[in-house]
């Protein structure tokens, strides 16, 4: 039971440090412990000043994303045993500004989410008294995958394009737009196209594909973006061929 494992954790206090440094901690090594449990152990027993975000510990709230040995991971779903005998390097999500220790700044991401208008847009609302919009399981299936995003931002931390160009809307925001575009109840595709078809929208993506690989919820944002590009290109050529028909 005396087995331990070493964690190398990024520390940064903006009031005192010029740049982040790394601090080592020895924590108990247990088969059922995830990286987050080790961080909680540190906070409870070794150093209460370690800051990081977490809540659900079941991979659904999306708050515990960090870099573990250089890979973006949900720390509540990443076992220590995967990295035994250690050490395990825990750093804040890459490409985001670091506020403190393992905390990153995410208002940019939130603004991007909002910018793609992720809500049902309709010309005419159906009154509640007329019941639900019918939607077959097949229609549901067309967008379901893109609705599974927990906003954990691992995909941003994996996407070099976001790292190089902070204006890039990024994988999760575009996947979310596509989620609504493909929803049979929605009529806002055109409105969103105007936003996403700008340079910082879909065209910034060069299909690195890392976003999809690291996504813990199998959202496939890379697929969403390429599908969106295809649609945008089709629309473009269509309106070229039939300029009078285009609205």
């Amino acid at each position, binding site marked *: 039971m005396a087995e331990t494992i070493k964690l190398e954790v990024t520390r940064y206090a*903006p009031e005192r440090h010029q740049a982040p440094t790394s601090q080592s901690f020895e924590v108990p090594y247990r088969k059922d412990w995830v990286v987050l449990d080790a961080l909680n152990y540190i906070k409870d027993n070794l150093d209460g000043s370690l800051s990081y*975000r977490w809540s659900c510990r079941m991979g659904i709230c999306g708050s515990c994303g960090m870099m573990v040995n250089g890979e973006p991971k949900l720390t509540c779903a990443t076992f220590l045993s995967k990295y035994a005998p250690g050490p395990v390097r825990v750093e804040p999500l890459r490409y985001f500004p670091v506020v403190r220790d393992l905390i990153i700044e995410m208002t940019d991401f939130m603004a991007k989410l909002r910018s793609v208008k992720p809500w049902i847009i309709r010309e005419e609302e159906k009154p509640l008294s007329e019941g639900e919009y019918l939607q077959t399981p097949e229609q549901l299936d067309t967008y379901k995958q893109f609705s599974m995003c927990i906003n954990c931002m691992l995909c941003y931390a994996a996407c070099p394009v976001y790292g190089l160009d902070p204006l890039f809307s990024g994988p999760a925001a575009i996947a979310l737009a596509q989620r609504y575009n493909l929803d049979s109840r929605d009529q806002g595709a055109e409105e969103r196209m105007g936003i996403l078809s700008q340079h910082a929208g879909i065209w910034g993506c060069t299909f690195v594909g890392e976003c999809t690989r690291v996504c813990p919820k199998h959202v496939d944002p890379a697929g969403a973006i390429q599908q969106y590009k295809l649609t945008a290109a089709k629309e473009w050529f269509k309106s070229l061929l039939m300029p009078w028909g285009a609205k």
Partner: protein
Amino acid sequence: MDISSHDVLIIGGGGAGLRAAIAVAEVNPRLNVAVISKVYPMRSHTVSAEGGAAAVIKTGDTLDDHAYDTISGGDWLCDQDAVEAFVQEAPEELLRLEHWGCPWSRDPDGHIAVRAFGGMKKERTWFAADKTGFHMLHTLFQTTLKYTAIARYDEWFVTKLLVDDNRVQGVVAIEIMSGKIQAITAKAVILCTGGCGRVFPFTTNANIKNGDGMALAYRAGAPLKDMEFVQYHPTGLPFTGILITEAARAEGGYMLNKDGYRYLQDYNLGTPQPKPVLRSMELGPRDRLCQAFVKEMEKGRTIKGPYGDVVHLDVRHLGEKLINTKLPFVRELCLKYQNIDPVKELIPVRPVVHYMMGGVSTNIHGATPLAGLYAAGEVACVSINGANRLGSNSLPELLVFGARAGRAAAEFASTQKESNGIILSQALDETKRVEAQFLEKTGGRERIATLREEMQKAMENGAGIYRTHSSLAEAAAKLRELQERFPSITLDDRSRTFNTELTAAVELGFMLDVGEAIVQSALHRTESRGAHQRTDYPKRDDEKFLAHTLIYRNADGSTHGDYLPVTITRWPPGERVYGQPAQAAQAKGG
């Protein structure tokens, strides 16, 4: 000090808070409404609800059926006018969510699909695969983005309600990112801060569920109602508290003690049969399963694990194929978050705290007795859950009463003048308190984690599945002691930037108050009803206790209790006899 002001301020960005915000924005778009939340709204705990949301939509089902299931499930402690309003409005609320884009699961013809859920006589649980709460919360959150009138304070932590003139006029909050402490004034405040599972050591609840709102209201002078009713779920993973659904048992999983013996047969729960039989053995009602666990533990027949006693849930005999097709999520949870493969290994499980029936006392419009203060969601007790919540009633409750509270608060705010200035000095006092007590304090040596663990253990031992006068008295004494030690806690972290130790300290203070309210309420109720089981008073006592407990906090920190009659409209209290339909209704949902 900076101050900002709003017409309506909503504390909490979970299902209830977001629904309330939209309600305010729709009732009166000129009102200035803000949502303040200690985590980004889509991180709120509503996100982890799996099972579903109940509302009558299919033919063959009636509102009365839903009401009856709810009331009998709640052991007749529900206010029946509230339940009637609830079942009436639940369908339209869920439909509205459908119109906002919630990806509800569908029948092949495109209509909403519903499924059966524990305690419901009819199939009426709407679901979005096994991620209902997740989809509801994200749909709500994304929909609020459309309303420019809704301002948000993300990652702001409320430490105090500002009350003056017997009216709630705002809050003091910490901007976690910067450590700035400031007042936010409002003409009406709605509490939507969720439950308090973290008061107990083993819980399905997330790290953020610390009963903040209950303590805020309690300290401000509002009464808490029915706090003794804490719901347990029999099969949670130890340590993480992750929920293993009833389905694992419905498919034929066994509950085994340390000798590999199906111990439930010793507790009047039937005899082992080759195939699972409804309402017998592993499929008995949840509270009975929890109680059997305690008895087994007392007999020393549970397994000692690193995180306390457990029993085993065994699904190995079902085979990999069945597990993969019928219980994929169970396997995924075990593999991904506990490093256990149920195909090959026994799953350690134990009863875990799941839901708080009690909360801030409100009427059916979400108004608390304190003017200007409203509450909705798990933090509130409108009294539709009574002594025991029915599974899948909580999610629709967030919507129905979130919306009601939003409308009521909007109306109230429209009639109020700006808040008065006296509260600002209160706000300055609170700022000084937080700074002096935590950030700038010298001396003291108690660690937050130590106090928290002692509190959780005291709650489990004293106010757990079974309570007695002496166990409760012991817990009360321990909580007193912890309250006295609390002022000497010391923080390692004195930074102003994202100081999560500071918020944990304030949360610990909240939890101690809430724990006290639970214990005191449980002491007062000398009967057994629903989730409140007293071994020294094993009988339900309608004569004395067909009433809600109210608990108040006095200015000196002591408490006093009171009772409020239960509103009965059409369903007179019935007997709950095991094996009767009423008993089936007792099985609670996930």
